[in-house]
């Protein structure tokens, strides 16, 4: 009788989609037969240059509207929020149905530019508002009625 042996590897696949599908099928068969187990690495999380602002889920940072922009052109994708998976993907990503979409830096940069544009457009309004609010705040700080001006009736 043949002895049982163990083999462990990190696999990187390179090939066309049809070959990859065959490869996935064979992995699936081996998984069903109990020949393989899949594990993902654990990692230690550390805050990095974030000044007390902890890393946050990408869907929280970007909001639903911007997430929809990310999956534009992927009509079968639906956003669902899955929390607390201790998976092994370190790059920011979204779980969309059964697929994982990595947050593309170029697209993220476009979103940063959009936000900057919106902020710049709001500036004039904010400056006017600042004066109005400061006047209200001044009254809040000192609710004493202003003294009557000399000569006022």
């Amino acid at each position, binding site marked *: 009788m043949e002895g049982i042996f163990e083999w462990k590897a990190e696999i990187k696949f390179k090939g066309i989609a049809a070959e990859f599908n065959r490869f996935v099928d064979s992995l699936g068969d081996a998984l069903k037969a109990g020949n393989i187990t899949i594990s993902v690495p654990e990692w230690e999380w550390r*805050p990095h*240059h974030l000044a007390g602002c902890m890393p946050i889920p990408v869907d929280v940072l970007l909001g639903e509207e911007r997430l929809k922009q990310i999956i534009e052109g992927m009509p079968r994708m639906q956003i669902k929020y899955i929390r607390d998976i201790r998976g092994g993907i370190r790059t920011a990503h979204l779980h969309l149905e059964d697929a994982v979409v990595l947050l593309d830096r170029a697209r993220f940069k476009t979103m940063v530019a959009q936000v900057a544009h919106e902020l710049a457009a709001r500036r004039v309004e904010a400056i006017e508002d600042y004066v109005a609010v400061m006047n209200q705040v001044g009254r809040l700080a000192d609710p004493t009625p202003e003294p009557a001006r000399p000569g006022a009736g």
Partner: protein
Amino acid sequence: MTFATAQKVVDFVMDAAPSGQRIDFSFFGGEPLLRFDLIGEVVGYIRKREQETERSTFLSVTSNGIPLTRPMLDFFRAENVDLCISIDGPVEVHDLNRVHRNGRGSYAEVVRSLQMAMDCLDAVQVNAVYGPETVGFLPQSVSFFMELGVPAIHLNPNICASWTGISYTELVETFMRIADHYIRSYQQGQEIAVNLIDSKLILFMKGGYGHDDMCGMGETEWGFAPSGNIYPCERFIGEDNDSSLCLGNVHSGLDLARRCSLLKRRGNRNEECKTCSLRTYCMNWCGCTNYYMTGSTDLAGPILCAIEQATIKAAEHVFVTLSTLDNELFVDHLMRYVYEGRHYR
């Protein structure tokens, strides 16, 4: 605090925190490193409870840096404990308030400890507290920290100080100068984070504070005195002698009636805020700040309003300028906020 009380605190928090949510434990004082032995025991206990409950935790210590030693740093490194050192800025700013009992300034020792910590740990943060007498020095302090190579800077107002007589216009100018330092740092290829800027940058991306961001005092935030007394936030502990703020004790349990009464007084009820266009970016709901500034947890005072407006304007300036300048490091910095974060909320 005794170890028995500390264990009760850990158990209380593990029970109170919503399942699936990471729990942050922060050691502060007074000076927490005076009881480094106890910190070691408590960290061991937290790790044990972590395993038992399958909870994920984040640990941090805020210290004045004076008692800091190399073995302590080795311990923090090994146990993944984050260190924040309280230093208010260069010597002329720091020694205004942070002095020994004999009046001698503590700057030299603190800077030495900070440099030792930066040599040993990956990410050391500094906590600079500013008051009415030092707020004008903030840009100078930020520049000083940048030169030291500190990557993460916390600037926190002294909420117990009397802020009367502060010029709002000067406050805005001061914060804009901080923004300019921030921008210059990114232009020079040095990534930094300043809490008051970064917190608003994130908000701009998010579109404003969400319900989960609001003050969690008495619900998701707690402070514990050495006696085991429970407070709704660490800033309420003070000398542990104000029973009106105490919500019970870890040995005898929570006073639920007091807790309910407190929870009803969260949020913001300023009429002025309802129509303010900046309200979605404003921390007018911070219970402890409001309490110390106005006497009510849900009523924001004028200085908070002024600080928040100045902060929002400064952060807006940073965001628009660095984005317009097409600064790649800035994009990386923002993106880092989502790196690895997906599974930890």
